[in-house]
């Protein structure tokens, strides 16, 4: 654990670009890649998320934290249109996403992983990644049936690209294994690779370290930072592992009962009495008791 803490880097200064958003100072003048305003959703009488505001600029990592049931996964489902919002707007790359479907959101540049892993279990690891590459290939059905030169060329490129992406997590050797038979941690990593294959501008990671041991988690932290640097994308991640969150996130948003109760740099959040009261607790050790990823099937 101390080893993980040692990796914690120089904290980045956050600035308010037109309030209520905060982004790293280096991106102050840049356009936002993702902008959610007054986002909210009700399930029957229950308001799961309300007045959620978020601005993300390129190559920044932001953490979304909060107690179980706070509405974190619901925010992801809203940002990817798995749920249509009851209130508010989402801008992606400066464009309003009103009326768009999950498929269109991905094509517009948002990709995600799932808290309850959703892989294509019966397909090979490589095919999972190739489905992520679906929209960067464009040969048609009959070209596929008749195996035309376009099919051969693009399939070869897709294979190479898939292998290259799998090498991020050193998974090339498992390329032919059915995704469903991978160990838990590898499944989570494969979900990240598959999401990256869709060439997103914004990557949403829902508890990427759930079920991983400390050394796996530490490795994952390095890889997530590396992905941010190499791909230059904005990453929003939900995590209960505070070492990971505090270690790699530049900004943190805290959610409780569906509302943002605080946002700021890791040290600001750690010292914010409201957050400590609602989530972190006086004694930081209690985070171990939170058992992420083990909840029922409701989370998409």
């Amino acid at each position: 654990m101390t080893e993980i803490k040692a990796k914690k880097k120089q904290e980045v200064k956050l600035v308010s670009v037109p309030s209520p958003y905060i982004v790293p100072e280096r991106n102050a003048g840049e356009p936002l890649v993702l902008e959610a305003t007054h986002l909210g959703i009700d399930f029957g009488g229950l308001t799961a998320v309300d007045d959620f505001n978020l601005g993300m600029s390129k190559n920044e990592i932001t953490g979304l934290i909060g107690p179980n049931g706070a509405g974190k996964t619901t925010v992801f489902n809203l940002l990817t249109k798995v749920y249509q919002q009851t209130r508010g707007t989402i801008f992606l790359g400066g464009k309003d996403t009103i009326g768009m479907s999950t498929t269109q959101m991905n094509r517009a540049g948002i990709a995600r992983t799932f808290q309850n892993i959703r892989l294509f279990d019966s397909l090979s690891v490589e095919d999972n990644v190739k489905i992520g590459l679906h929209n960067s290939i464009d040969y048609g059905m009959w070209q596929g049936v008749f195996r035309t030169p376009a099919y051969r060329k693009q399939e070869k490129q897709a294979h190479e690209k898939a292998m290259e992406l799998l090498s991020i997590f050193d998974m090339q050797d498992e390329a032919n294994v059915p995704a469903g038979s991978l160990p838990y941690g590898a499944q989570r990593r494969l979900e990240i690779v598959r999401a990256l294959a869709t060439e997103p501008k914004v990557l949403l990671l829902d508890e990427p370290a759930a079920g991983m041991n400390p050394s796996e988690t530490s490795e994952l932290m390095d890889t997530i930072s590396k992905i941010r640097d190499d791909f230059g994308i904005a990453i929003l991640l939900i995590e209960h592992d505070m070492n990971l969150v505090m270690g790699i996130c530049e900004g943190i948003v805290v959610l409780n009962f569906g509302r943002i109760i605080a946002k700021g740099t890791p040290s600001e959040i750690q010292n914010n009495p409201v957050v400590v009261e609602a989530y972190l607790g006086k004694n930081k050790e209690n985070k171990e008791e939170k058992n992420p990823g083990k909840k029922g099937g409701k989370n998409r």
Partner: protein
Amino acid sequence: MKKLSKHSIKGFINYGLVIVLYIIFQILASAKVLTNSLQGLLVPICAYVVMALALNLVVGFSGELSLGHAGFMSVGAFTGVIIASSLKNLVPFGPARLILAIAGGAVLAAIAGVLIGVPVLRLRGDYLAIVTLAFGEIIKNIMNCMYIGVDSRGLHFSITDEASMGLEPGGTTIINGPMGALGITKISSFLAGIILIVITLFIIQNLVNSRAGRAIAGIRDNRIAAEACGIPVTKYKMMAFVTSSALAGAAGALYALNYSTVVPKKFDFNTSILILVFVVLGGIGNLTGSIIAAIILTVLPEVLRQFQDYRMLVYAIVLILVMIITNNEKASAFIKGLFSKKAKKEAA
């Protein structure tokens, strides 16, 4: 050296299986071992194999349920008969007429598939099963009151009776309501059936192992994840369903042009279920299994005819055994073990 992928090996096995079966049946036929009734089953077997493969594309690869595939077979069958009968003078060469009839049957069945798929496949849930079930019954009832004939002026239709078509004295009635299609010239052949199976395998296997096939299987495995990967779900469900409908139509045309008469009642709910049984028994998503199940379950009732009293009993037992063997891992491992031991012994 380029390694063969697992897919292509499996694909070759299926082509090989079909060709070996063709040779075996040809030898049996020329040695006069096949009874007349079995000989007459050769083309229907091919049609059912194509039906089973087509339905497996929907049930196995796309993960949807169709309970009315006989309806598409029916559309293909009657379209094929109309085309073959009305082109009799124009295209006297039988095989050429058969190709046109099969292609026409496939196209019309594909159109029927589009008409059903467009409204239904955009919904979530098992609506396809209900709607295809209804479709099969509707097609059967429509064909039951269709009168179609041809004379020198072209095709004539009626939905009341034969006389109201107003055929010229020399004209022929092709479809006569509930009596079905009459006076068909048999132009289907076993070889044509085998070729249609090979074409079907070619389309399905290559489709499944392409970009579209991955998308189709991805949607089946996890619809939400597929959407989150930017896959247009309705488009690919349509692709699988319409391709399957077209192949079923082709099978229908092949089937109908093997008989002198075909009645609409032949393509009813029972036939749809029979084809589904081939798919389920052969193993969902398993093309080799579909081929074998369709052959065995078409031949079996015929072979068991001599044991009249016990026929259905034995049939039931075989059904259960096939199901256990194809869908139980231990049992299939045991069977594979038997074969590989044999292979080892032979090698030694």
